[in-house]
C-alpha cells in the first residue's frame, strides 16, 4: 500500500515527521499509516478521517478541533488487547506508534442509538439544560437504574476488565525552581535560573519540547526557531542541575508549591511498556515535586468562535490548522475559510495557501484590520472580508460551506446580507486565553484584562506566570518575559542572577493590530432559534443552553456551570469556559469580570490510575509485618488473620484422619482443648512493648493508668487499664517492674504505636518535668506464650529458671535461659490456664520456638492461633479493647472497679470524667456475659439486643453483642455483650431479633464462663 495514496492530506516535504519510516495503526477497525513524529490526531487528519467521535448528549458527528491538550472531541479509547485498554486519551496528545489500536470513546456504539432514542422519549427531544435533573430525579428510587444507562451512553470510555500488564511508579523530587512548559518563555526562564545555579526541573506535556516554537513562522537571530530551540535544549542538558521531563504534564498544584507531574514514559513506544536491557520499566510515572519557586509557562489556548453548527467536522481552531500544516505537514482539507477577531490567526490562511491549497476568504470581525500579517495575506492575494464573521457552518458529516455576514459586535446583530462561501474547512479564532489552570489550583483568583481580552492569573507568593500564560504573546516579549521570570525566581531563591539582554535572541518585531472581543457570533435568528452554537463541545453545551439557564434564574457562573455541565469531565473548560462566561454575561447584561470565572481544579488532564497508585499495589499495597516465626507458621499451613498490618496465625488446620483438611471450627476446637487439657503455644510477638526508664517512671505509670503502681516490686507484673481523659477505656495490657526505675509495658497489638504516642503526648505537653523516657522494643523481643496444665512440665525441660509454683508465682517474672537463650519469662495468663510468656531477642526466636516443639512432642504441644486465643480469653471474660469496647465504655461499665485507683493522690488521666453526670447516669451499657438458651446457637457479633421482642418496630435497643464464639469446653455458644444496666440484670433474659426473622433468647450472666474463681492460672 502506497503511503502517499493513503495519507492524502500529507504534504511531500517539510515538517517534523520522519517519512523514512511508516507506522501502521488501526482506528475504529480500519488500518491506516503514519510516521514517527505524528500524533494519532495528525495521522488521522493525514488520512482524511473526519469523524472521530459522536457527541456526548446529541450524538452528533465530531472531528478534530485542536492540536493539543485542549482537544474536546478526539478523545479515544486506546489498546490492542483487553488488558491494555486506556480510556479518555486525547488523540492530539498520543504519539503514533506501530500497531496502535484506537477507537472512538463511545464504547457502546451499536446500542447507543437505541438508548438515546429511549432517553429522548422519556425526556424532551432537544434535551434542555438540567435535562438529567428534570427527567430522572423522580422517582428518586429509579435514579440508580437510569444512571447505569446514562453512563453507558455518555461516552466516557471504559476501563479494562483484565489486570494491567504494566507497572507504574512514583518519584519524589525536590528542586529550587519548577518550570512548567518548555515553550519560548519556559525555556528562557529555565536557562536563566539554571545559569544562576538553581536546581531546575523543566516539564513539558508534549512529545517534543519547544511549545509554539515548533510551528512558528518567526525567526530567532535570523535562524529558524528550530535552531534556537536545539541550542537552548542542548545548553539546558549540559547543566547537571537541570532535569528535563518531556511528555510530562503538571496536572495538579497543591499546597506550598507541591506539584504533581504525570510523565508518560512509554506511551509513545507501544501498547504495553517494552522492557529495557531486560528490565521492566514503568509505563508512566508520577513525580511528586516540592519546589522552592514555580514558573508557569503554560502558554495560552486559542478560543474558537461560537457560531451555528460550529461542531461539524471541518471546523478547527486557526492555530491548530497552522500546527498541523507546519509541524505535521498535514493539511486537513482543500478549501479554507478563516473567521477571526485578531491578526495572529492569519497565520492559518498563509500556511494553508503556502501548502498549495485554496483559501476562500479570511473573514475578520474588525472593520479595519491592519497588521503585518493582514498586509501579508492581502499581498498573497487572499480575499479579506472585514467587519464580518462566519455565522453558520453548512454540512452534515463535513463542512460544505460557510455562511458569512457582516455583524455588529457591540449590538450582537447581523447587519448585512449573508454570503455563502463553499469550503470544506472553517478555521476560527476568537483570541487567546492564558492557561491559568495551575495558578487556579492554588486558589489564586484570575483577573480580567481588557488588553488581552482574557483572564490573566494572579499568583500566590513564589509562583510566577510568564509568556502566554501571563498574557504576553509577541515572541520577542515572551522570551524577555521568560528570562525575567527565571532571573527573579533565582534571585528570590538566593542565587546571584541578572538579566543580560545580550543573551536574548533577536526577534523581528511584528506589528499586530488590536483584536476585538468577539465570543458568540450573532446569527440572523435568535440564539434559541438558530442552529446549535456550541460553547463546550465535549459536554454538548450550547449558547442556547446557557441562555436558558440564565432565563431560568441561574445567575452565578458556578450555578450555570453545574446546570449545563459546561467545563465538566476531562475537558475542564479549556476551550469553552471563557466563551460560556461571555454568553452568560451577555444574557445577564453584565461584563465578563462581573460574571466571574469558575474555579479550575486538578487534574488538568486525566491521570491514569496506574500512575496514581504507583508501586503501592498487589503484594506491596500495604506493609505486611511478620514475626520472627513467620516461616514456621507458613510451613505449618497456618491460615493468617490481619491484625493492623501484622499477619498473625489465625488457626492451624491439620489433616483429618479421613484425609480432608480441618475446618476452622474443627481446628479451633482441637486447639482449645489442647490448651485446656494439655499445652498450647501462641506467637504473641506482635504485642506492643514499651521500655520505660527513669526516676519518675513509676509516678508516670500511676498518672497514665487507672490503677495503682506505687507498690509493684521488681520481679512483679500487673495488669493495667488506660483511659482517655474522657474516662473511656483506650488500651490495656500488663506492665512489669524490671527494676525500681525500669518498667516494661505491653500494649495491644494494634495500639502499640498509638500508646507510645499517648505516653509521649502527656510527657511532652503536660508533665515534661517527670524524668522518664519511653522506647519501643516491640520488634526487639519475640514473645511466645506456653499455656495449659502441662506448661510447667514442658518448660522445666528447657530452662534454668525455677518454675516451682511458690518460687515463681502467678504475676511474677524471672530471668534465665530457655533453650540456651537468655530470656525473660513472665507468668501471666490470657487463657486462664497456667501460662508462661517467654521473651527472647528476636534473633533467637526461631531457635527457641523450634526447641520448644522438639521437646514438646511428648506433651502434644499444640500451636494455636488468634481465633483460639479469642475463644479462651472470652471464656474467662478478658476484654479485647476495640472489640468489647468502642471508645464509649468506662472501666466501671466493664465491671472493672478493681482496676480503678479511686484514692490515688494524683488526678490520673480519666479520673475526673468518671464523675461526670453522663458517666454517673443510670442505664449505661455494661459488659455482661450472654448464654443463649439454645446451646447450639452462636450469636452474631454486633447483633442488637432488646428487652421486649414484642415491642413494635422500631424496638428500643438495649445493647449489642461484642464477642461471640462456640466454646468446646462448655459445649455451648456464649457471648460477651454490652447491655443497658446489665450489671443489675443478672439472670434476666434478653432477645436478639435477627434479619431472617428468628429471635434468639439469651440469659444475662457474668463474664467468666470457665473457672470463675481463677484457680487454674495459679496452679
Amino acid at each position, binding site marked *: 500500500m502506497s503511503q502517499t495514496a493513503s495519507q492524502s492530506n500529507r504534504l511531500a516535504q517539510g515538517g517534523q515527521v520522519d517519512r523514512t519510516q511508516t507506522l501502521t495503526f488501526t482506528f475504529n477497525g480500519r488500518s491506516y499509516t503514519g510516521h514517527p513524529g505524528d500524533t494519532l490526531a495528525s495521522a488521522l487528519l493525514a488520512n482524511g478521517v473526519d469523524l472521530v467521535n459522536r457527541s456526548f448528549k446529541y450524538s452528533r458527528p465530531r472531528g478534530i478541533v485542536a492540536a493539543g491538550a485542549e482537544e474536546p472531541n478526539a478523545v479515544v479509547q486506546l489498546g490492542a488487547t483487553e488488558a491494555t485498554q486506556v480510556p479518555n486519551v486525547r488523540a492530539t496528545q498520543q504519539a503514533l506508534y506501530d500497531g496502535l489500536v484506537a477507537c472512538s470513546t463511545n464504547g457502546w456504539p451499536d446500542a447507543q442509538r437505541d438508548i438515546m432514542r429511549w432517553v429522548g422519549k422519556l425526556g424532551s427531544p432537544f434535551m434542555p439544560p438540567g435535562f438529567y435533573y428534570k427527567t430522572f430525579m423522580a422517582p428518586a428510587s429509579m435514579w440508580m437504574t437510569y444512571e447505569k444507562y446514562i453512563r453507558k451512553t455518555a461516552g466516557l470510555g471504559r476501563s479494562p476488565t483484565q489486570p494491567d500488564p504494566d507497572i507504574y*511508579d*512514583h*518519584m*519524589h*523530587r*525536590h528542586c529550587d525552581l519548577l518550570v512548567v512548559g518548555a515553550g519560548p518563555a519556559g525555556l528562557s526562564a529555565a536557562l536563566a535560573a539554571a545559569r544562576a545555579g538553581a*536546581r531546575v526541573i523543566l516539564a513539558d506535556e508534549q512529545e517534543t519540547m519547544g511549545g509554539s516554537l515548533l510551528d512558528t513562522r518567526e525567526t530567532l537571530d535570523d535562524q529558524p526557531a528550530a535552531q534556537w530551540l536545539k541550542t537552548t535544549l542542548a545548553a539546558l542538558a549540559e547543566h547537571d542541575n537541570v532535569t528535563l521531563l518531556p511528555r510530562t504534564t503538571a496536572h495538579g498544584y497543591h499546597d506550598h508549591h507541591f506539584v504533581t507531574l504525570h510523565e508518560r514514559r512509554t506511551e509513545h513506544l507501544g501498547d504495553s511498556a517494552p522492557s*529495557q*536491557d531486560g*528490565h*521492566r*520499566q*514503568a509505563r508512566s510515572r508520577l513525580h511528586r515535586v*516540592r519546589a522552592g519557586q514555580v514558573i508557569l509557562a503554560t502558554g495560552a489556548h486559542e478560543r474558537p468562535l461560537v457560531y451555528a453548527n460550529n461542531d461539524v467536522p471541518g471546523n478547527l481552531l486557526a492555530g491548530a490548522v497552522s500546527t498541523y500544516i507546519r509541524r505535521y505537514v498535514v493539511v486537513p482539507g482543500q478549501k479554507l475559510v478563516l473567521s477571526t477577531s485578531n491578526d495572529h490567526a492569519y497565520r492559518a490562511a498563509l500556511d494553508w495557501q503556502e501548502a498549495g491549497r485554496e483559501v476562500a476568504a479570511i473573514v475578520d470581525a474588525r472593520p479595519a484590520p491592519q497588521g503585518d500579517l493582514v498586509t501579508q495575506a492581502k499581498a498573497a492575494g487572499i480575499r479579506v472580508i472585514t467587519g464580518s464573521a462566519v455565522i453558520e457552518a453548512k454540512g452534515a458529516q463535513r463542512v460544505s460551506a460557510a455562511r458569512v455576514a457582516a455583524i455588529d459586535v457591540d449590538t450582537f446583530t447581523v447587519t448585512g446580507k449573508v454570503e455563502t462561501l463553499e469550503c470544506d474547512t472553517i478555521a476560527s479564532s476568537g483570541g487567546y486565553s492564558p492557561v491559568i489552570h495551575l495558578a487556579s489550583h492554588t486558589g489564586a483568583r484570575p483577573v480580567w484584562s481588557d488588553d488581552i481580552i482574557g483572564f490573566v492569573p494572579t499568583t500566590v507568593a513564589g509562583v510566577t506566570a510568564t509568556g502566554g500564560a501571563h498574557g504576553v504573546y509577541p515572541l520577542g516579549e515572551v522570551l524577555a518575559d521568560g528570562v525575567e521570570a527565571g532571573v527573579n525566581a533565582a534571585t528570590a531563591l538566593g542565587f546571584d542572577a541578572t538579566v543580560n539582554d545580550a543573551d536574548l535572541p533577536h526577534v523581528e518585531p511584528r506589528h499586530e493590530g488590536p483584536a476585538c472581543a468577539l465570543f458568540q457570533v450573532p446569527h440572523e435568528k435568535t440564539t434559541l432559534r438558530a442552529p446549535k452554537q456550541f460553547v463546550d463541545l465535549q459536554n454538548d453545551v450550547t449558547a442556547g443552553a446557557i441562555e436558558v439557564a440564565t432565563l431560568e434564574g441561574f445567575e452565578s457562573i458556578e450555578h450555570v456551570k453545574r446546570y449545563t455541565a459546561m467545563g465538566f469531565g476531562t475537558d475542564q473548560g479549556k476551550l469553552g469556559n471563557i466563551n460560556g462566561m461571555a454568553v452568560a454575561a451577555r444574557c445577564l447584561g453584565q461584563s465578563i469580570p462581573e460574571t466571574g470565572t469558575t474555579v479550575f481544579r486538578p487534574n488538568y488532564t486525566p491521570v491514569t490510575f496506574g500512575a496514581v497508585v504507583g*508501586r*503501592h499495589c498487589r*503484594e*506491596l499495597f*500495604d*506493609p*505486611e*509485618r*511478620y*514475626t*520472627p516465626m*513467620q*516461616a514456621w507458621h507458613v510451613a505449618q499451613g497456618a491460615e493468617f488473620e490481619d491484625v493492623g498490618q*501484622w499477619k498473625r496465625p489465625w488457626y492451624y488446620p491439620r489433616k483429618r484422619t479421613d484425609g480432608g483438611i480441618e475446618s476452622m471450627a474443627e481446628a479451633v476446637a482441637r486447639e482449645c482443648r489442647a490448651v485446656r487439657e494439655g499445652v498450647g503455644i501462641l506467637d504473641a510477638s*506482635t504485642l506492643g512493648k514499651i*521500655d520505660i*526508664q*527513669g526516676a519518675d517512671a513509676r509516678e508516670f505509670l500511676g498518672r497514665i493508668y487507672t490503677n495503682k503502681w506505687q507498690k509493684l516490686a*521488681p520481679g512483679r507484673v500487673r495488669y493495667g487499664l488506660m483511659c482517655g481523659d474522657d474516662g473511656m477505656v483506650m488500651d490495656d495490657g500488663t506492665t512489669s517492674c*524490671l*527494676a*525500681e*526505675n*525500669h518498667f516494661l509495658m505491653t500494649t495491644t497489638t494494634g495500639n502499640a504505636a498509638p500508646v507510645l504516642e499517648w505516653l509521649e503526648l502527656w510527657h511532652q505537653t503536660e508533665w515534661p518535668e517527670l*524524668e522518664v*523516657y519511653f*522506647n*519501643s*522494643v*516491640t*520488634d*526487639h*523481643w*519475640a514473645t511466645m506464650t506456653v499455656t495449659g496444665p502441662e506448661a510447667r512440665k514442658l518448660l522445666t525441660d528447657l530452662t534454668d529458671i525455677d518454675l516451682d509454683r511458690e518460687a515463681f508465682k502467678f504475676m511474677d517474672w524471672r530471668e534465665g535461659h530457655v533453650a*540456651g*537463650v*537468655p*530470656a*525473660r519469662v513472665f507468668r501471666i495468663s490470657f487463657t486462664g490456664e497456667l501460662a508462661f510468656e517467654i521473651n*527472647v*531477642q*528476636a*534473633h*533467637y*526466636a526461631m*531457635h527457641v520456638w523450634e526447641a520448644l516443639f522438639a521437646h514438646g512432642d511428648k506433651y502434644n504441644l499444640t500451636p494455636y492461633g488468634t481465633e483460639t486465643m479469642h475463644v479462651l480469653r472470652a471464656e474467662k471474660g478478658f476484654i479485647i479493647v476495640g472489640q468489647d469496647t468502642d471508645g464509649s465504655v468506662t472501666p466501671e461499665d466493664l465491671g472493672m472497679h478493681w482496676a480503678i485507683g479511686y484514692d490515688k493522690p494524683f488526678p490520673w488521666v480519666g479520673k475526673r470524667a468518671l464523675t461526670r453526670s453522663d458517666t454517673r447516669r443510670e442505664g449505661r451499657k455494661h459488659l455482661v456475659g450472654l448464654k443463649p438458651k439454645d446451646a447450639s446457637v452462636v450469636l452474631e457479633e454486633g447483633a442488637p439486643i432488646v428487652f421486649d421482642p414484642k415491642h413494635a418496630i422500631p424496638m428500643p435497643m438495649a445493647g449489642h453483642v461484642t464477642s461471640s464464639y462456640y466454646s468446646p469446653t462448655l459445649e455451648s455458644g456464649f457471648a460477651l455483650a454490652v447491655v443497658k444496666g446489665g450489671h443489675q440484670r443478672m439472670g434476666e433474659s434478653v432477645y436478639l431479633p435477627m434479619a431472617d426473622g428468628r429471635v434468639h433468647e439469651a440469659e444475662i450472666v457474668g463474664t467468666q464462663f470457665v473457672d470463675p474463681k481463677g484457680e487454674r492460672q495459679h496452679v
Partner: protein
Amino acid sequence: MSNSVHVYDARADHATVTAESPLAYSFQRSGMPAPGEEGRAVVSERAFLGHLILRGGAIVLDEALREVLGIGLPGRPNSLTVDADGQRSVQWLSPDEWLLIVPGDEIFGLETRLRAHLGGSHVAIVDVSAGQTLIELSGEAAHEVLMKSTVYDVDPHAFTVGKGVTTLFAKTNVILRRPDEARWELIVRRSFADYVYRWLLDAGEEYGIGVARESRHEPQ
C-alpha cells in the same frame, strides 16, 4: 552503678544458638537476585550489629560517649558521626535521642560502661539490636531507587555524607543515612524488613538491582 535499671545481656552464644537476621526469611522467600554486572543498585544486609538507643541530655551523653567510645554525639540535628575505622556510629534522632551502632559483640560491654560513667544521670539506654536491621544500598542508581521510595530529598548534593534522618519509606518508616560517598544505609524495623526488601527489589528492578551477601564496601 545503681540497680535501679535492669541491665540485661540478652545476647546468646552464636556458636551454639542459631540466630536469624531480620531478612533471613525474605532471602529464603523472595530470593537474592544477583546484582547486574554494572552493579547500578546493590542491596546487602549488615546483620547482628549492636543497636543502642541513647536518651538524655546532649552534654552528659556526649561526655560519656567520648570517654567510653572515643567519639562524640553529632552536634547538629539530622547528622551522623562515624568513628575512624567506620565500625561505630552515632546518629541524632531527636533533641534527646541518639542511635548508636557498634559491632554486635560490643553492645553489652558498651552499655555497662556507659551506665557506669553516667551514674545517676537522667538518661535511658535501650538495646534494640534485634528489633531492627541495617540494609545497605550502593551503586550509581541507589539514590534513584530512594527517590522512588522516600519523600525526603535524596539528591546526593542535598543529602550529603554525614547526614541521617528518620523519614518515610514507601508506607513505612526508616532511618536513612549516608556514612560515606558510596553507601546509603537504611535502618529498618524488623517486622517491616520484608516489606522494605520486597519494595527495594521492585523499585530497583529497572536498574538491575541485586543482593550482595556481604557489604561490598567493608569499612576500612
